[in-house]
């Protein structure tokens, strides 16, 4: 009987597994295979080079800058975005003045804010990146114009042109573009938290901060964790690539201060004709991603709260 059951289950799984194998597993394997070759990307003529590409990675200063910047993004981007989104979502849903009619409610005009926050989400990434690029224009951009309008003529940074600031500038644009989505996501999560919990907290005399840390955040933890994972992917993947590629000096500069792993993969493949080496960089990106995944899963499990 048990035997039959498994066959039954397998019958259902064959098709999806086959699709998964063809479109996900086989590209994985191929990519790893190419990382051991000297494939140029422009000719079907290539040979195996063993671990040469990986040995080269260790010597490659640009690669290590890219790893550093990608990891910085990976660590900071989710923290900043999610903290901001949590704060905004809390203020929109719970943080308002307590009235007699409702135990909890958002600040005044919260409906409008919700729409405003979501706005960047409907703009495509290149447009957001371009808008910020204009704003950062040191010569006539919005930010420096604003600074001189309030009398700060002496403070006119080069923004994207300054290696100390460039990565932060790109990161700020990414936060701006993404925070709205998480405000909406967390708002949805918060609205499913039973009101009695808040009532009980209120009766016990909890303030806003206490309510947030002892009621809202623990009950929202699953959503936060999901958001964290998505932001992590964003920080490592195509989104970071698009922002850096469009906004940064070079791109990737000044002086490699904004070089990130996906950009380096792109440059090695499409500019330098070294697709084999690029896939080796890609494999290292995979390793960074897997480490991140493992860490997030581990942290998430420890903090899990059951209700």
């Amino acid at each position, binding site marked *: 009987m048990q035997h039959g059951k498994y066959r039954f289950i397998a019958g259902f799984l064959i098709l999806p597994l086959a699709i998964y194998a063809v479109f*996900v597993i086989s*590209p*994985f394997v*191929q*990519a790893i295979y*190419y990382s051991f070759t*000297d*494939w*140029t*990307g*422009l*000719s*079907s*003529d290539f040979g195996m080079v063993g671990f040469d590409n990986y040995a*080269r990675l260790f010597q490659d200063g640009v690669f290590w800058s890219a790893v550093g910047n990608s990891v910085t993004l990976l660590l900071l981007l989710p923290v900043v975005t999610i903290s901001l989104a949590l704060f905004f979502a809390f203020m929109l849903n719970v943080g308002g003045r307590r009235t007699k009619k409702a135990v909890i409610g958002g600040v005044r005009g919260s409906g409008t804010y919700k729409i405003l926050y979501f706005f960047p989400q409907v703009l495509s990434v290149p447009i957001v990146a371009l808008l910020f*690029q204009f704003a*950062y*224009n*040191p*010569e*006539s951009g919005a930010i420096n114009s604003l600074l001189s309008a309030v009398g700060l003529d002496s403070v*006119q940074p*080069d*923004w*994207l*042109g*300054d*290696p100390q600031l460039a990565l932060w500038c790109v990161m700020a644009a990414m936060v701006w573009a993404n925070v709205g989505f998480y405000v909406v996501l967390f708002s949805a999560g918060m609205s499913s938290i039973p009101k009695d919990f808040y009532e009980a907290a209120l009766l016990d005399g909890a303030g806003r901060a206490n309510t947030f840390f002892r009621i809202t955040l623990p009950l929202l933890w699953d959503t936060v964790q*999901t958001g964290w*994972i*998505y932001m992590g*992917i964003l920080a490592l*993947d*195509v989104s970071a690539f698009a922002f850096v590629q469009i906004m*940064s*000096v*070079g791109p*990737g*500069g*000044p*002086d*490699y201060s904004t070089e990130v792993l*996906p950009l380096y*993969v792109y*440059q090695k*493949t*499409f*500019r*330098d*004709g070294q*697709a084999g080496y690029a896939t080796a960089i*890609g494999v290292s*990106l*995979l390793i960074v*991603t*897997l480490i*991140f*995944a493992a860490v997030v899963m581990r942290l998430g*499990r420890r903090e899990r709260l*059951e209700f």
Partner: protein
Amino acid sequence: MGSTSETSRRDLIKRSVALGVFAVPTMSVLASCASGGDSGGGDKVDKGTKSAKNPLAVNESAALDVVIFDGGFGDKYAKDAEAQYAVAHPKTKGKIKHASTQKIQSTLQPRFNGGNPPDLVDNSGAEQMDFSTLVGKDQLTDLTPLLDAPSIDDPSKKVRDTLRPGVVEMGQFGGSEIWTLYYAYTVYGVWYSKTNLKKLDAEYPENWDDMLALCAKAKKKGIAGWTYPGKYPYYVPFSLYPFIAKIGGAEVLRRIDNLEPGAWKDPAVRAAFEAYYELYKKGYILKGSPGLDHLQSQKAWAEGKALFIPNGSWVENESGKQIEAAGNFDLAVGAPSSLNSSDKMPFGTLWASGGEPFIVPKQAKNAEGGMELLRIMLSEKSSKNFTKQVSSLTSLNGGTEGLSLPPGLASAQQALAKAGKNVLNPRLQDWYVALQKEKIGVGCIGEMMAGRLTPAEAINKIQKYADETRKDSSVKKYKR
């Protein structure tokens, strides 16, 4: 409060889903390129009959497949040439396949790997396919037959002899074969508005002391001397490299191109770098330039906020609207000013070279057809058509008689005439793209112009990068 076993099972599923979500986008970066396909290419079309009208023996009825980079020059000039091709070979009418794209490499990579590339490609733009790799992997057809074929306008001349100086050499990669033919011809230098200089009672400064004096005068009026696209600092070499050669002789640039040890330590390099660094130190560079892209810096310059910008002759087309908005701008190009009387080359020495590299892939089915189309494009009629459409010169020497050129192009033409034999053609930017643009351009020259490196530091860093490239076995080397 759900049962524990239920929760953990749900967790397990969630986690595996999350893991899948991770893995998929990561690998999409990796696997975006997959080689494969057999290297066919055995199905080339038969040659046609060789005749005076058909010196390349083009198959008179074979299809032709053309891919053009759709950038600043558009693709109309190529379509016009294709129409002429169809007139010359009537049986090919309707069989000419024309495609234009900005994404040359991602469009063509599968076709190169699969062994069925087009017959003629304009390999240009940000997604230009790497020439070293194409040549190294034997993917290109030698264009010597085209260059030895008679020119359309004057059958007694070979195509080779109708081209501007340096164009043929630019197509060579260390051997006698000519792998690519640059169709457009770009004049690089210091671009300025004659009108804006006149407002300061000045003309283009022919030596560096005058340049500094003019910048000082402009500064008093709140105008910057120079600006440059700090986001792409590899524009600075457009006037800096010929400046180096002017000071120390063309030999210095040749040694730099050949990645010779210590090539950058030449005193001429140091002198040129010091001179440019002085522009920064004296505050003659438009504030914020390190954060501007090419369009933003050109806009500020066209608005008269800065007098000079290192650029190429495409600037007239690219910033045409802003130059027009400035009223009577009177665009002109200047060769690098003389540093002092001991300069090895005369004033007027400048950098000019080909743009829009056209290639005929090795495995093209109709390679003769691709070359024939190039031969048509290098006729005076097509060349004039190109110049009229996009205000740029072509590689055809002359070919502008009777055209009324816009001011910038006319000035470029004069500058070329003045330069005579002293036209330089540094190859770093097509031989070692990563070294020139990213390492030297962004990493060193950009940092120096922003004041974050001194000339000495910049030169040491550049020499280190050049040495690394010389020792890097994954980069193919060239000599000239």
